[in-house]
């Protein structure tokens, strides 16, 4: 599903060169549940931005489903984010002025889905996270766990093959964090490719594959069972 070949991301700050990604190669198969772990500054966030088509590497190649992404135009990258990747962020990143339904609807609007079909797809996504009873609430009226479930529903709305979760439990207490993790596991069972970025080894251990990053390079890549 994902193929990264020899990717570098180098920031220059004054005279200093910061190698956020220092020659990374990584393949992620369809239906894999991968955790990318590392301390802050290890380059995992940069890698997540690359995987999410949010940033362009200094050099290297990146393919999604065999398509070279780094060479695509802005709008084509937007379409890939829209159709192939569902984002889940640590801070939920829901739009505060829109209600639950409208937040989930947003990616479908950008996809160009007509209203009736959109509503169906929203309902379906919200059912998956059991949030159908609060569709007209604003994010500020929901608990953190509920907000993250809405964010997951938004990520699922366009039925992307891959879910990219950046510290999805980071802002939650351990109980709701566990629930979110369960949800991700269930999605994996349903056939989604999951990429989970975290600094927490316990959480990473839940995944079937753990890729460990330090100083912009992969230091270990282990698969359980």
């Amino acid at each position, binding site marked *: 599903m994902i193929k990264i070949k020899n990717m570098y991301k180098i920031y220059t700050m004054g005279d200093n060169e910061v190698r956020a990604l220092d020659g990374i190669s990584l393949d992620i198969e369809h239906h894999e549940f991968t955790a990318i772990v590392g301390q802050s500054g290890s380059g995992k966030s940069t890698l997540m931005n690359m995987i999410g088509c949010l940033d362009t590497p200094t050099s290297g190649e990146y393919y999604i489903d065999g398509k070279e992404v780094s060479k695509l135009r802005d709008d084509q990258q937007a379409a890939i984010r829209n159709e192939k990747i569902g984002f889940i962020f640590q801070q939920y990143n829901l739009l505060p002025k829109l209600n639950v339904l409208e937040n989930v609807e947003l990616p479908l609007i950008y996809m160009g889905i007509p209203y009736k079909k959109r509503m169906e797809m929203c309902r379906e996504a919200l059912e998956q996270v059991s949030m159908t009873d609060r569709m007209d609430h604003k994010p500020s009226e929901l608990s953190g766990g509920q907000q993250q479930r809405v964010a997951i529903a938004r990520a699922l709305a*366009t039925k992307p093959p891959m879910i990219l979760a950046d510290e999805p439990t980071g802002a939650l207490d351990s109980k709701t964090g566990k629930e979110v993790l369960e949800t991700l596991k269930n999605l994996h069972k349903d056939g989604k490719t999951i990429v989970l970025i975290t600094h927490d080894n316990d959480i990473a251990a839940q995944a079937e594959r753990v890729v460990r990053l330090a100083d912009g390079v992969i230091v270990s890549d282990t698969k359980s069972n």
Partner: protein
Amino acid sequence: MAMKSVKSNKMRTFLTMLGIIIGISSVIMMVSIVQGVTRDVADQVAGAGTNMINVTLTGQGTTRELRMRDMNELVDEHPEIIRGIAPNISGRATVRQGTNNNTVNVVGTNPIFSTAQNVNAQIGRFINDEDVELRRNNAVIGTFNVQDLFGGRNPIGENIRLDGVLFTVVGVLEESAGGRQGSGDDRIIIPYPTAMSLFNSGRIGSYIVEATGPDTVGQAVTLTERFLLRELGSSQAFHIFNMQNILDMFDGIMGQMALMLGGIAAISLLVGGIGIMNIMLVSVTERTREIGIRKAIGAKRSSIMTQFLIESVVVSCMGGVIGIVLGAIGAIGIGNVIEVNAAPEFSIVLFSFGFAAFIGMFFGWYPANKASKLNPIEALRFD
């Protein structure tokens, strides 16, 4: 989507709109009033007759007097261009009826005056050719005089005295100026030979030449000029002016004024537009994170661009509509005070609305473009 942000910031949206509201309402007000005044003057001039040419004989550089029958040669020479000529003898006389008396304007003329000046009798009749030929002491009086001398009762067939001379009232003029004293409704029209003897005057100093239509006025002016030059031998001996000249001059002045006022209004619209741009830029910065989220979940540049453009166009169009309403109310209000029909024309309303939309588009472009070009990761990192 764009509407939501407009609604959620009501006060700010209103303040942003204020520039556009003031700009558009002043455009509407100024243009409507100028147009109203122009229309009013044009109507008055048309009421006075644009087909006519005023000729004043100064008597300088010539010893020749032009009598009515001399002037009629002009009509006989060019009947297809000149319909007729009316003498215009004016003076003031004391009018007396019973115990009422007053000073009035007296005009001595012939029946052509009626069509040339568009002055008709509402009851009775205007003076006719027979009155002129037989030098009858008949008079047509204005509505003010009917009130003043007869207390409003029907004056037809009644007698009045002008400087002691007995006249019979044969008609009342149509009211043209609200029946006010000193206006066109306060005058007495008598046959010109009678006026000449009333004022002890041997010559006619002024004529009104009536052209056959608006298209022939220009030719009529040329012919009259040529005729007078031939007869009098000096260009010093007469003046000619035509209502159309005055109207053209007035149109020119009003056009310049409209341009100047429009320029001032345009500047205020420009300021309003900059206000919109300013607020939109603030809004883009404030909503950097929102833009980042939207981009991350698949918004294309064009989607972001459209969202912000719609927002600024909606704000300026709303300002435009409010401005149009306020401007129309203002124009009609001021119009009432200065007694001019200043209701805005539909074309101006349409133009103003279009212009407001254009301003929203023009000044919204830069902020919208800026928003659409934001880098999603930097936007997401923004707090």
